[in-house]
């Protein structure tokens, strides 16, 4: 679809004019309709704009501006919405309901697995909004990628990739879901852009799930922004003393919703979770699973002792439970139920 004059004007202002955000906003306020911006009548500006639009087209990127129909309404409501969002992938996702799932880069294995599962179930109703980092973000992506209901917001331009190791992942998100960024395509990530990106995560979404966060985690910025914007905040409860969960527990203490599965989240939006098919378990598996549920995080040898199995028999059963997504192995041969 061809951009309207107003959209073009905003893109020119944001991308080509060289003005900062405040100045751009001031310029827009000064005119009744962005299309009436006086600078645009200058031929060199029109040329600049056409060149920029061509470069976007070459890289197969699209843009939405404050004047576009599909600019996310929720984002418009925040105090500093980006004038332009650049996107790559499935544009239709912008109109869907959105829910944000984020977690710190270092995340306990059980939380990683749980995040993946929750993300998968949430993606049946919402577009899952997240970043592109390791740990929590990655888990959310791997859960929602299958359905394609996935929006990743980058802290850098869309032609860049941060972290660079996730270039393949980024490509797959682009193929199935949507990549968004408020930065020009070739702008690298800067220190401040992570904070700014987190405001978009919160601003785009109806609610935010914090999968894991240490006491001073960047993930908490997203949570604080969500509170500021009046979005729901959910958090997984973590063990006392686990560094990667202190932030989550503190959020719950302050009044965030405690979530242990997708149902907790979906029900607060009046949605229903698809009934899960219970995997059939053998006698041994049932026994080992109950040992795991009783014991929290257990070493394989402890599991074996409590279930009355030999250690290598227990590891076989545990790995079967792992395949069925009922148990998870963390470092040092420790297992826990999910």
């Amino acid at each position, binding site marked *: 679809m061809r951009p309207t004059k107003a959209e073009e004007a905003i893109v020119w202002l944001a991308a080509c004019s060289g003005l900062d955000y405040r100045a751009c906003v001031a310029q827009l306020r000064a005119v009744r309709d962005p299309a009436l911006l006086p600078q645009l009548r200058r031929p060199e500006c029109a040329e600049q704009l056409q060149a920029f639009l061509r470069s976007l087209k070459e890289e197969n990127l699209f843009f939405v501006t404050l004047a576009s129909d599909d600019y996310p309404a929720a984002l418009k409501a925040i105090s500093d919405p980006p004038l332009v969002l650049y996107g790559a992938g499935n544009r239709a996702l912008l109109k869907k309901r959105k829910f944000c799932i984020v977690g710190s880069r270092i995340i306990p294995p059980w939380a990683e697995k749980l995040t993946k599962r929750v993300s998968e179930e949430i993606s049946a109703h919402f577009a899952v909004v997240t970043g592109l980092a390791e740990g929590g973000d990655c888990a959310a992506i791997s859960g929602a990628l299958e359905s394609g209901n996935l929006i990743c917001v980058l802290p850098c331009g869309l032609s860049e990739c941060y972290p660079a190791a996730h270039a393949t992942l980024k490509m797959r998100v682009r193929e199935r879901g949507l990549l968004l960024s408020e930065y020009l395509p070739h702008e690298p990530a800067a220190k401040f852009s992570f904070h700014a990106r987190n405001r978009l995560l919160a601003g785009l979404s109806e609610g935010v799930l914090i999968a894991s966060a240490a006491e001073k985690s960047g993930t908490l910025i997203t949570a604080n922004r969500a509170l500021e914007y009046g979005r729901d905040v959910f958090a997984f409860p973590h063990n006392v003393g686990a560094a990667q969960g202190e932030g989550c527990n503190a959020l719950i203490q302050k009044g965030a919703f405690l979530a242990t599965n997708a149902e907790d989240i979906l029900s607060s939006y009046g949605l229903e979770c698809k009934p899960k098919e219970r995997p059939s378990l053998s006698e041994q598996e049932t026994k080992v699973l109950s040992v795991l549920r009783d014991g929290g995080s257990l070493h394989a040898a402890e599991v074996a002792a409590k279930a009355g199995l030999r*250690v290598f028999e227990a590891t076989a059963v545990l790995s079967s439970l792992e395949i069925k997504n009922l148990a998870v*192995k963390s470092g040092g041969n420790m297992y826990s139920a999910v």
Partner: protein
Amino acid sequence: MIAKIVCYTLNGLEGVPVEVETDVNKGIPGYEMVGLPDTAVKESKERVRSALKNSGLLFPMNKITVNFAPADIKKEGAVFDLAIAISLLKASEQLVGGEVKDIVFLGELALNGDVRPINGILPILISAKGHGFTRFVIPAGNASEARFLGGAEIYPARTLNEVVRHLLGVAPISPLETATFVPGTAASGSSDLKFIKGQPIARRALEIAVAGGHNMLMAGPPGTGKTMLARCLPTIMPDLTFEEALEITKIHSVAGVLGEEGIVSERPFRTPHHTATTVSMCGGGNRIVHPGEISLAHGGVLFLDELPEYKRSTLEALRQPLEDGKITVSRAGGTFTYPARFMLCASMNPCPCGNYGSADRTCTCTPAEIRRYRRKISGPLLDRIDLQVEVDNISYDDLTSPEEREDSATVKERVNAARHIQNVRFEGSGIHTNAEMGEREIAAYCTLTKEGDKILREAFERMKLSARARARIIKVARTIADLDGQENILPAHVLEAVSYRIYDKIG
């Protein structure tokens, strides 16, 4: 007069006959050596001169020409000293009546006339016997190594004079008695599984690895006993057969690392430091190609402690020998093939700080750091490591199950039983262990039950295992079934095999 004496030089593990021809002629006294001798061989001139003089023999004051035939191969080292001395004596008619035909003389000479031991005596003797030679004069220092060669008369000599008197029939040296091979009884003693506390998972992995000839990787925080576990590997490996022992001894003999007892009776356990170069690992050298660590580990274990610290190129060089069981090294001086069928056992920390997954300390590494650390080991190499286990530092004081107190001998019995099943299975097919199976053998011997196949499919989907991992898992499952004494691979075997691929899951 011309004298011809047979000696041997080494080409890889093969002995090559060299004829030492000496001509003593009238003329201006001189000493000429021809036939591509290297410096060490040329220097034998002085050693032979002094040794003769100090043995009360005469160094002829004539024009002497020594020729080594065939002339086109390089002659290296001091192995020719004794042969040159004897040929000189024969040519200068100091050995009248002494028969030297068809005797192979091997040995280096000291200035006082002593015969010094040389490297590589066993491979030379074996080759020479194959060429039809049955009488040898060797340095007494090599006697312990040479006595394992049956069907030959071997005369160990301490001095040049002894050799002369033997040849003249004045004081014959009694030939060596052939020794019978007794496999080492794990005399090292200090390593035994019974000394290892806990670690049931790693123990089990060791057992499976040895039973099926699989390579293994242990990951765990520092101080969890990875090295100690690895040192137990030779104690649970099957005893060496005489043929294996001879082959290993040949390699060690060529490399000059043979111990006192003269034959390698225990499986080698090599632990090259992580600063090792590719050449020291694979073999190489300027002109003679020495066997590298992987060849010295032939028939035994190559233990690489702190795997990610090794140079990438060194590790990558292991890939081909891991597959072929031999290494071919090409140098200007020739191309040499050494056997290198070893079991690779590697250990590494789970992350740069070492505490990832530790029970009592927290890991301070970022995911990117951990990823970088693990990426030092390439996928193709990791792919050749069938068993990957975590070694942890949980205290086992209150957990004592029976399998934690077993000693090496008990485990070895089970390993032997599993190996026996494999020997019967692979009889005449040129492979010995499950790990060596190719696609054809997997199809023939590794039939999965319907249920087992379903499990494997599920595991593939959920864990995103690579297609290459499939064959590895099936092979390990085959070994577990063998240990279990089962004809068919059961679902439990597959599941256990899946649990030993931790690095596929981490991806």
